[in-house]
């Protein structure tokens, strides 16, 4: 994958491994915990102090989960469908609109670019909790409550992604390149599509991952902006399990946690190789 990766193991790498391996174990711990937690039988789930590894793995949690879902008024597939649609649209929208806005703010000269970017940065600092009720008012005001848009629109306004992409564009995309494209007669859209986007792919991938986990795990939009079960998302349904399922709910919640985590992991694996590839092979050295 990387040109600089050595083919063989050599002695001078040992110090690096000495630092990296223990830290990597540290970092991987929560993932291992999530996976094992889902397969724990009841007594191990409530063991104190909690143990990392499972000694008698069982699938009970999963069977409970599916039995529960089969008995519900709204089928599980509906929640899954909602989540997939909402997440896909929101992530695509975030990435596209943020990078477009970042392009305009970073590479075009016009009057209020600085002001707008400052507004974005100030919004970044603001506690999202504090705008919950005003947001609710806006959403009912424009009449999109109880639709998919109630999930998508609030989460698409993520200043973090714009901030990351814009800063990356400032640093990674040389103005000379854009100037050259401009001289060659490329339209602004052509420059954005053909020159800028391929160069900021790492930032885009990072933004997409961040936005994905924000949307996929989001409970608030389901709780606040929808009243009908049929437009609520999987994350919301999974979070209700622990509350409604009694003692078995804990096990189901653990299984649901793993369930929710797997798409995160898959997306990350796909995106990660892309991020690293672009960074290793871009001709920007």
């Amino acid at each position, binding site marked *: *994958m*990387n040109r*600089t*990766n050595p083919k063989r193991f050599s002695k001078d*790498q040992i110090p*690096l491994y000495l*630092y*990296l391996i223990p*830290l*990597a174990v*540290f*970092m991987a*711990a*929560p*993932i291992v915990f*999530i996976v094992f937690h889902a397969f724990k039988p009841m007594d191990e789930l409530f063991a104190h102090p909690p143990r*990392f590894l499972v000694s008698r793995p069982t699938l009970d949690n999963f069977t409970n989960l599916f039995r529960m879902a089969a008995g519900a008024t709204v089928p599980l597939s509906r929640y899954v469908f909602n989540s997939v649609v909402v997440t896909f649209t929101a992530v695509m929208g975030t990435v596209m*609109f*943020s990078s477009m806005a970042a392009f*305009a703010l970073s590479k*075009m*000269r*016009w009057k209020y670019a600085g002001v*707008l970017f400052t507004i974005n940065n100030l*919004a*970044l*600092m*603001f*506690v999202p*909790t*504090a705008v*919950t*009720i*005003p947001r609710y008012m*806006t959403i009912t005001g424009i009449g999109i409550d109880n639709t998919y848009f109630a999930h998508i*629109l*609030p989460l698409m306004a993520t200043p*973090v992604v714009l901030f*990351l992409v814009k800063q990356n564009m*400032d*640093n*990674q995309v040389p103005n000379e390149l*854009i100037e050259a494209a401009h001289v060659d007669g490329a339209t*602004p859209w052509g420059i*954005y599509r053909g020159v800028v986007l391929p160069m900021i792919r*790492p*930032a885009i991938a990072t933004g997409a*991952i*961040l936005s994905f*986990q924000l949307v996929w*795990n989001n409970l608030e939009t389901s709780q606040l902006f929808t009243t009908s079960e049929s437009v609520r998302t999987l994350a919301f349904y999974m979070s209700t399990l622990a509350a409604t399922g009694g003692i078995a709910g804990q096990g189901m919640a653990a299984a649901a*946690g793993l369930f929710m*985590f797997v798409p*995160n*992991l898959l997306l*990350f694996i796909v995106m*990660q190789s892309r991020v690293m590839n672009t*960074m*290793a092979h871009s001709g*920007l050295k």
Partner: protein
Amino acid sequence: MEKVIHANTFRMKCVKLANKIKGLRKSMRISGRTRRNWFYAYAFLMPWLIGVFLLLIYPLYTSFSFSRSQVRFPPTGLVQFPVGWENYTNIFALDTVFMTGLVSFTLQLIPQMAIIVSFALIISMLLNGRIKARGLFRAVFFLPVIIATGPVMSELINEGVATVPAVNLSAIANAMDFLPPMVLEPIVGLFTQLIMILWNSGVQILIFLAALQKINPEQYEAAKMDGASGWECFWKITSPALRPMLFLNVIYTVVWLANSDQNPIINMLHIRMIAGVLGPGGMPGGYGHASAMAWVYSIVVLLIIGLCWVVLHERKDKDKPETKRLEQKSYLPKRREIVRKLRKSDMEGIGVDKR
């Protein structure tokens, strides 16, 4: 002004006229392009702008108006009584819980941020080294990011997985008891959250790595040939390349920590928001008060970021010529600038002394 007399006046006049027309045409074309540039800038921004104004700026405005009133929720909707700055004065005069929380949060945030950023820096440099299975290591260090938010994380904390059992807290506290409790408490708190801090550093590692990858390895080779030590290489090659990313990372970390679900202030806000006018512990509550708390909190975070900016921002090079700086900023120079330049070249082209 002294008039310069040329041999062939008529020819000069012709050239001058032609140049003028050319310049005029050029400047007209450029003015058209600038107008289109405006249009395009707004076209690119429009979707984002609409979203931001509808779902960010307007709610922010409403929340500010809430913070200056008492908000009640009778069965039919929402009622606002304007109370001026009372909520804010209440925060400073009555709400001791929030104020102490805010102070200890600030004292914790700065060292936490420093640890996260320096940890990310070290890890990214290790990951940029020549090792086997680099991709795997990178994946492992970024992974916690995708679970650091959301319900999974709070469950992990409840289970006590996020603390280091090997670290004896009371021993640390005893060893440093010469410090005043105001300083000591955040430090001890830092140790309890050590793993959490490390788990939060994935994005920062990625950002640093991107910058490190851009450094040409030949630069290091050349430096080595000239007899530079590893330490010198770090300061003269690596650190200038990382500097812009450092600032980005610091801001990102502060914002991330300030808005995370595990933040005690955010949780306090949640509780106060749904509480009545008298919240838990006799502290003021209600939506109006919580909004005011949110504003005060945001301003504090803003001040912290301002502080980071003062420390870390890059000073602009003053000795760069004006046009150079212009070119660096944008690919479409200002129209006036172009016209001026054209006029100048006009004059030079025909050799007129421009005194």
